């Protein structure tokens, strides 16, 4: 484990903890956000028969860096009639919420921020902070559009946590663990051990589980999509209705924080889907490192598989975003309460029965 390794290396508990907890931010979230923004632009551009940014570097690869520099230089506007404390606190809270989630995500067998046993519940709980950040932003901005956006966001995120949690409950019931590390380890070796294909179960049980797992995967993917406010569920920041929703009044670095939080969140939820249904950091075909006897290669391979699975789901999010129109706020609620929640209840019950078999 990374922590033990660093502890042995430095001899200091605090330093090791510090490095381990900061590592996701610097090694992963920031570069990922840079990459994801560029990816979003390129994916959308090519889906629309355009080219996207082309001027900064080869095919515009430096575009997001240029953007960040621009955002850093920008004047940090605070409108006069805002609630200053809340206004300044909100982007931090939103960012902390999404950043803290990364602490419990196993990037590979070797590197997890904190290997807590309640990993998945921790993530669900801590991402709830984002709602507080958004509500604060909307309220403090003293802007009607922001307020509407924030109210929508709060309603939406809280509703969509129910189906998410129900599916998570199903998985917990099936596997008997809350730790994301254990969950990933359970789906080891080959892709037929992934939970989407019934997990490590065997025989009839596995075959019976498959349709429910696929359904569950779809439901959790949709509801997490709604939790991170991506199209078709992006009504809190619906550009054509509410200008920009809760971050209408933000500029410069504070806006960048919201932006970063959004992209970090995108990856976090993709990672959860990948861990729960697609084997987490496990390779689908076994490890090259094990075959060749190079054990040091295995964590790198695991990291590679984990990020590529995560990125694939991020790509699907973008793909959906550039294909679909958005829901109206009441339809969004109806979709959650009338379709997703009953479906996930049914899955919970039936999977429970199957697990009893």
């Amino acid at each position: 484990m990374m922590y033990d390794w660093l502890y042995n290396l430095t001899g200091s508990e605090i330093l090791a903890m510090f490095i381990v907890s900061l590592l996701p931010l610097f090694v992963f979230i920031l570069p990922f956000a840079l990459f994801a923004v560029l990816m979003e632009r390129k994916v959308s551009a090519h889906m629309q028969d355009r080219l996207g940014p082309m001027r900064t570097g080869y095919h515009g690869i430096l575009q997001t860096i240029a953007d960040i520099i621009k955002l850093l230089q920008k004047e940090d506007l605070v409108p006069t009639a805002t609630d200053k404390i809340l206004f300044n606190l909100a982007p931090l809270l939103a960012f902390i919420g999404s950043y803290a989630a990364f602490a419990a995500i196993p990037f590979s067998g070797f590197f997890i921020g904190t290997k807590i046993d309640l990993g998945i519940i921790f993530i669900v709980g801590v991402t709830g902070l984002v709602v507080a950040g958004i509500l604060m932003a909307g309220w403090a901005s003293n802007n009607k559009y922001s307020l509407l956006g924030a109210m929508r966001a709060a309603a939406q995120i809280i509703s969509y946590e129910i189906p998410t949690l129900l599916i998570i409950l199903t998985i917990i019931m099936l596997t008997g663990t809350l730790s994301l590390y254990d969950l990933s380890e359970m789906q080891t070796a080959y892709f037929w051990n992934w939970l989407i294909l019934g997990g490590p179960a065997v025989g009839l049980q596995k075959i019976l589980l498959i349709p429910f797992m696929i359904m569950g995967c779809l439901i959790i993917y949709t509801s997490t999509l709604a939790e991170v406010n991506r199209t078709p569920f992006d009504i809190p920041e619906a550009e054509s209705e509410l200008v920009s929703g809760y971050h209408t009044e933000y500029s410069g670095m504070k806006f960048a924080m919201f932006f970063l939080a959004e992209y970090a969140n995108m990856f976090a939820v993709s990672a959860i889907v990948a861990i729960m249904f697609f084997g987490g950091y496990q390779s689908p075909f076994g490890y090259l490192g094990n075959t060749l006897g190079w054990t040091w290669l295995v964590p790198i391979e695991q990291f590679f598989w984990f990020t590529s699975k995560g990125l694939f789901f991020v790509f699907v999010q973008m793909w959906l975003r550039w294909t679909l129109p958005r829901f109206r706020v009441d339809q969004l609620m109806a979709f959650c309460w009338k379709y997703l929640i009953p479906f996930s209840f049914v899955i919970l019950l039936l999977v429970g029965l199957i697990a009893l078999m």
Partner: protein
Amino acid sequence: MALKTEEMVLNMGPQHPSTHGVLRLELQIDGEIIIDVIPHIGYLHRCFEKHCEAMTYPQVIPYTDRMDYLASMYNEFGYALAMERLMKIEVPERVEYIRVIMGELQRIASHLVALGTYGADIGAFTPFLFCFRDRERILHLFEITCGARLLYNYIWIGGLSHDLHPDFIRLTKEFIKDFRPNVKELNELLSYNRIFIERTANVGVLPIETAINYGVSGPNLRASGMKWDLRKDDPYSVYHKFDYDIPIGKGEKGKTGDCWDRYYVRVLEMDESLKIIEQAIEQIPDGDVTSAIPKRVKPPEGQIYTRVENPRGELGYFIISDGSINPARVKVRAPSFVTMQVFPELCKGFMVADVVAILGSVDIVLGEIDR
């Protein structure tokens, strides 16, 4: 403590991403439900009618372009038609055919903008760019013909400024061939999308009696189920020589006259326009396009009201001539101006998000409302 609720006034526009120009809507909302809408217009008022009084008749044409800037060709068409009727000018057949081709191409271009931006209003951004990609080819056709992409000054009183470009017919045929699959793709991507239908069906229903009473015209009226098209019902130019249908809203996905019907009527209309263009290209006669242009435009004293079927509805020109070279009065009956009146009626009881959907579906152009 008793709970106190209050209505909120939300000011949408003049700077707002989806008011299609500089329109200000004063929304009275209860939560997200619309209680009342008060439109405020005039932010783009450029005194077109006052300008006309100082212009000679041919000089008005560039100004008509700037009203409905998405359908400039048709604005000129209407004005030229009114002047020709007032001055009793016989226009060569070829001119009429070219005008029809241009008008129908313009209709497709205008509808493409309407459909694309409607998708963007609802939240789907990709159809918007697909539509603009196709519109660009139409604009190129206009550009090779008259040199301008948006404000043409092409249709003149009694004729046209240029004859067709030698490549025009070939390029138009190519465009038609490439465009048909694109309409199908647009349907797959947007029109039949379940979320899109959820957002638009049964929203902003315009009953036919209200529509007529308010004077709503064009695709909005047809979507309410009335087969009323000035190309057939008050024929002008050479439209009687072509074979085409008038699509009307049938209420396939919801009530007749809802946003989806208004959207879909436009999709179908593009197809009909393609039919007209195809026939016109086949039949177009030879001839001189500038022969009937009068050297000096000095109509007799009198007045005329002429209307044409603009992509947005009935575009009427009311021209009073006092016998001099400047018009005494040019009043434009702008289709969007009339449609905008009925807008508050459509919105009541729906939600904030629906305001955007309804506004997009009635397809207004602020340049025309404010003139």
